[in-house]
């Protein structure tokens, strides 16, 4: 009774407390999932805690355990968390920008462009001069994917911008056209590919965090981190944009500047993500949608929580991908699609009344 009296009742219509509580829960869950991710794998007898402590100078761990935890599993777990966060936040930003809960980074051609870059690198990479091949080495595919994603986004942005104003509707439609075009080009290259290359292409398209290394993480990580840090500055603008572009500008939002930041940060983070993990679908749609149902659409709370839940989701999907066909690994894109597809349908059916009104 005393507790009820000292704490004011939650105000009707105000879901900020709920969002803050959810953030704490998600933070704890993320910590647990990361720890679990570090202990997950074939070498079940690895002393994860010991290896973590040893790095901090407390106690000792065997060289084998140190290698497994720090060189193999840690970059994988960090990559999973970072990419999951990037995809979920990019989805939320795109949905806010297009004022549509079904928008996805795929819509603005980032994914298609990145896919084209990767396919071109796998199939045509051998044609590059040897000196250049040696220079970029194993980075050829990620670099090409990143450039492809950026290039297609910039082309699209130029098409949709006229007289200093970017039309979101034009961007959506041109994105479909450009996606079809890059898809056709990709198809042409795939048609020309050898059997070995086809195998690489297929697995790349399904996505995986298995190939994560510190080097790749340190290349893509800063771009993703920058985009994640930029996201909170878009929160107020995205909230205002829910009321339409004209209303947002009446509320003091520089809508053109905000669109530019949103599009470039999404292109950067998704391009970098696709570059190191390949195509991983559904996290960008399911995570923000679920959070909007749980805590409301205010972006100041939606964006950070989407980052946390996106990271958790991808880490869990990665763990599942490692046990389903053990000792082999299932591409993670298959897992996220298997979980995300039915889950999304369930949300849709449950909220059909609200959507159709």
């Amino acid at each position, binding site marked *: 009774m005393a507790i009820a009296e000292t704490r004011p009742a939650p105000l009707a219509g105000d*879901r900020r407390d709920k969002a803050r509580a959810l953030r704490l829960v998600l933070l704890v869950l993320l910590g647990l999932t990361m720890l679990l991710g570090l202990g997950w794998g074939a070498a079940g007898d690895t002393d994860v805690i010991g290896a973590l402590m040893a790095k901090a100078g407390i106690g000792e761990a065997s060289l084998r355990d140190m290698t497994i935890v720090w060189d193999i599993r840690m970059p994988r777990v960090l990559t999973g968390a970072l990419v999951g966060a990037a995809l979920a936040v990019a989805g939320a930003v795109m949905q806010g920008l297009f004022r549509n809960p079904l928008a996805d980074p795929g819509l603005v051609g980032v994914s298609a462009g990145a896919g084209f870059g990767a396919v071109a690198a796998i199939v045509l990479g051998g044609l590059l001069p040897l000196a250049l091949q040696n220079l970029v080495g194993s980075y050829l595919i990620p670099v090409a994917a990143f450039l492809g994603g950026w290039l297609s986004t910039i082309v699209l942005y130029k098409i949709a911008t006229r007289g200093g104003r970017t039309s979101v509707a034009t961007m959506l439609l041109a994105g479909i056209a450009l996606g079809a075009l890059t898809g056709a080009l990709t198809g042409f290259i795939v048609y020309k590919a050898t059997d070995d290359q086809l195998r690489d292409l297929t697995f790349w398209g399904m996505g995986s965090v298995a190939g994560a290394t510190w080097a790749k993480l340190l290349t893509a990580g800063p771009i993703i981190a920058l985009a994640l840090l930029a996201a909170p500055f878009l929160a107020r603008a995205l909230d205002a944009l829910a*009321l*339409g572009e004209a209303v947002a500008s009446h*509320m003091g939002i*520089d809508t053109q500047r905000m669109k530019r930041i949103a599009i470039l940060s999404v292109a950067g983070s998704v391009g970098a993500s696709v570059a190191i993990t390949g195509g991983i679908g559904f996290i960008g749609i399911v995570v923000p949608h679920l959070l*909007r149902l749980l805590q409301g*659409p205010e972006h100041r709370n939606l964006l950070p929580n989407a980052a946390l839940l996106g990271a958790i989701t991808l880490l869990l999907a990665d763990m599942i991908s490692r046990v389903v066909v053990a000792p082999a690994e299932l591409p993670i894109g298959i897992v996220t699609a298997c979980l995300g597809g039915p889950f999304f349908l369930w949300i849709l059916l449950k909220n059909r009344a609200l959507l159709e009104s």
Partner: protein
Amino acid sequence: MITATDITVHFGTRKVLDRVHFSAAAGDVTAIVGPNGSGKTTLLRAITGEQAFDGEVALDGVPLPHLSPLDLAQRRAVLPQSGSIAFPFTVLELVRLGLTAGLATGRTEGLEHLPRTALTRVGLEGFEGRMVQELSGGERQRAQLARVLVQIWEPVLDGHPRWLILDEPVSALDIGHQLAVMELARDYARRGGGVIAVMHDLNLTAMFADRVTLLGGGEVQAEGTPQEVFTDGRLSACYGCSLRTNTPPPTGGPWILPQASQLSM
């Protein structure tokens, strides 16, 4: 003072506004009236900067392009004709969006009570937790008005009047709420703010407006007090129907009675 000088707007090759002059002073409710397609909303959108135009719109002598979006948002708020909303916001969350509008930072200390006060002001107390999508058209219009009010709550800020710009603010409202909203607008003007409203209802305009601009065919047909502007011949010609203006004793203002065509013959 908001002044619009020589406003010309083309939609393709069609001229929608032709060298229109308009001005509104703080302390007044200034109404823009006219038949459908006369350019009322286009003029309002030129004034708010939504519509590209030839000519100049100035706020207290400063042309609009010289003011940043933030400056403008601090000095005027705009109620759109129909407000759609993209995600499932609650009424309180919608109104709270007005709090940070025009602020350089998201700091709203000491203002957190305003959204509730504004909701009470528009007769929506107890609606805080309702979803905006589930409101009726009139309730939604009043919720949007509450958001707009929160943005420029004090009619005068640092000696500058602030402006409430309303596009058909009572179009979805029942008669009781029509009066309440118009009284609210008049009260805002009486406390030193400025109000510009596009109106359809000539009688409400006559009751609440201090100044009226009558548009017809993209040009200003008349400008002045309702008594000066609303004359039988001018209104009938402008609206293309027979209208007779009466002055009933209680208010002293003109009262417009539409005449069915059989009766007028």
